């Protein structure tokens, strides 16, 4: 899984986003190669979700650019981004609770670029997430959290996107369910799709991803590869450095020496 060898499919270039006068993402740059899995980890409020929302054009940029396959998304609205091949599995699932499972999947297909193959895509999804097929005509709001997460992923991949953005897919799920979700993600990765995964459960994400960006205060604090998942010290440094900074409210982070306390439990799992 050589990063340099493949072409970049998604490029985030000096992107800044602010909510009112509060900066959420500051001059962030990162590149994702086709077929790659990139994770973005970081503490609460680091700007992870904002990055994904910005790529989807769901929040306005204050500066910078995002390119998909070399083409700028600056002038695109979020539905156009979706129809150009980026799909989002939003934080908290955000499935349409009043609509049936099947209707949710139909909405997922709105962004499909090819007119053919819809049935096959649906079958593939059923195969991967049997639970979705079982409850096809049930209102999605009646599914359990894990089932809803599977539906949300299924809804995203029926569009057969080039890039799949996942926002905290493990949030609020039981460990066994998380295993299911990651197994599904592994299958998706096998199918050659590019994945950008935002996770607060850093260890698992880092291990899963080809490369990981650690985000804090809206800037990239560190870059890691899968092997670093076991390097607890480095993780802690990245996390706690950001945390102390956030608490102290200091200026732009320059990657100074992190204050490492003696955490009661694994900081990464929290």
């Amino acid at each position, binding site marked *: 899984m050589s990063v340099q060898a493949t072409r970049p499919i998604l490029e985030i270039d000096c992107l800044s986003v602010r909510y009112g006068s509060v900066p959420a993402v500051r001059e962030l740059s990162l590149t994702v190669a086709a077929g790659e899995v990139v994770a973005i980890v970081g503490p609460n409020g680091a700007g992870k979700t904002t990055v994904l929302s910005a790529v989807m054009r*769901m929040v306005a940029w204050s500066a910078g650019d995002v390119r998909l396959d070399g083409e700028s998304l600056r002038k695109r*609205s979020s*539905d156009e981004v*979706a129809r150009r091949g980026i799909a989002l599995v939003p934080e908290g699932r955000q499935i*349409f609770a009043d*609509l049936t499972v099947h209707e949710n999947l139909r*909405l997922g297909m*709105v*962004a499909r670029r090819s007119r053919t193959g819809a049935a096959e895509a649906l079958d593939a999804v059923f195969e991967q997430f049997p639970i979705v097929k079982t409850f096809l005509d049930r209102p999605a709001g009646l599914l359990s959290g894990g089932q809803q997460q599977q539906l949300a992923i299924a*809804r995203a991949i029926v569009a057969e996107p080039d890039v799949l953005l996942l926002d905290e897919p493990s949030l609020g799920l039981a460990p066994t369910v998380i295993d299911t979700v990651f197994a599904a993600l592994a299958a998706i990765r096998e199918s050659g799709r590019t994945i950008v995964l935002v996770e607060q459960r850093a260890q698992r994400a880092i291990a899963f991803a080809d490369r990981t960006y650690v985000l804090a205060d809206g800037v990239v604090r560190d870059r890691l590869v899968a092997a670093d998942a076991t390097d607890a010290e480095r993780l802690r440094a990245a996390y706690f450095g950001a945390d102390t900074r956030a608490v102290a409210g200091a200026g732009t982070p320059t990657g100074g020496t992190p204050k490492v306390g003696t955490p009661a439990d694994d900081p990464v799992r929290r």
Partner: protein
Amino acid sequence: MKYVQYLIDAIALGSLYALVALGIGLVFGVMRIVNLAHGELLMAGGYTLYETNGWPAVLRVLTALAVVIAVALLMERLALRPLRRASPTTTLVMTFAVSFLLRSIAQKRWSAQGKTMNLFTDLNQAFTIGELRIKYLTIAAVVVGGVLLGAVTLFLDRTDLGLQMRATASDERIAQALGVRANHVVVGAFVIAGVLATAALVLFAPQRPVVTPDFGLQIAILALVGVVVGGMDKPSSATLGGFFIGFANSMLFSLLPKGQRVFLDSALYGLVIVVLLVRPSGLFQRETVTSRL
């Protein structure tokens, strides 16, 4: 027997308001916009009927439909689309400004003096069953109202655009992130609202043959009250709310003692307040759902 006649009168009026309410409710459901200018769609259609006096009736109705849809789309494109992200209050005031503009234009063009529409006046004929008198118009209103409500429901349930409308109504941001084109959905909603407004107009016209600049305003305001009372979130509850307000208006008039009829508005609005206090999210709404506005 007397009361059955009251009931028939009330159903007749309720059905008319239901159609107006469905149009208002649909636009609200999809766009979260309280469209105070919905009544001016009826007005625009009314003046079209006046201007086309003498043409074949079907042609007149189709012309009115075209004009109403055109006005609805212009309204959306020029005044509301740029405010897609604005607060509900801002869009509400914008629709009021649109309503005011259209009424002012009508006043300048046709003056405040009413103009007769002369459409389907035969529908005012009634047949009797025993002592009961039923207008063909009542039958038409109930049938057309029912058919259109059914058609809209089917449209929302079965078609892709309908599904996208429901998704947009439920969460616009997520729907768009899935690739739903907001403009398609909104244009669709306004076209349907135009169709519903025209249908309502055609049914109001035989009974209220004189169109004035204020023609639609009074109707729309009462229908809007009905929509809120019924529950705004679903087209079905909005429609029932519209029916309720028309029905209650008619029924209260009949039931009030003669000398007290002038207090009809008080009785009606008093009822509205009671309903809102008892069921804040709507009379025909499941209690768990709360208005997002």
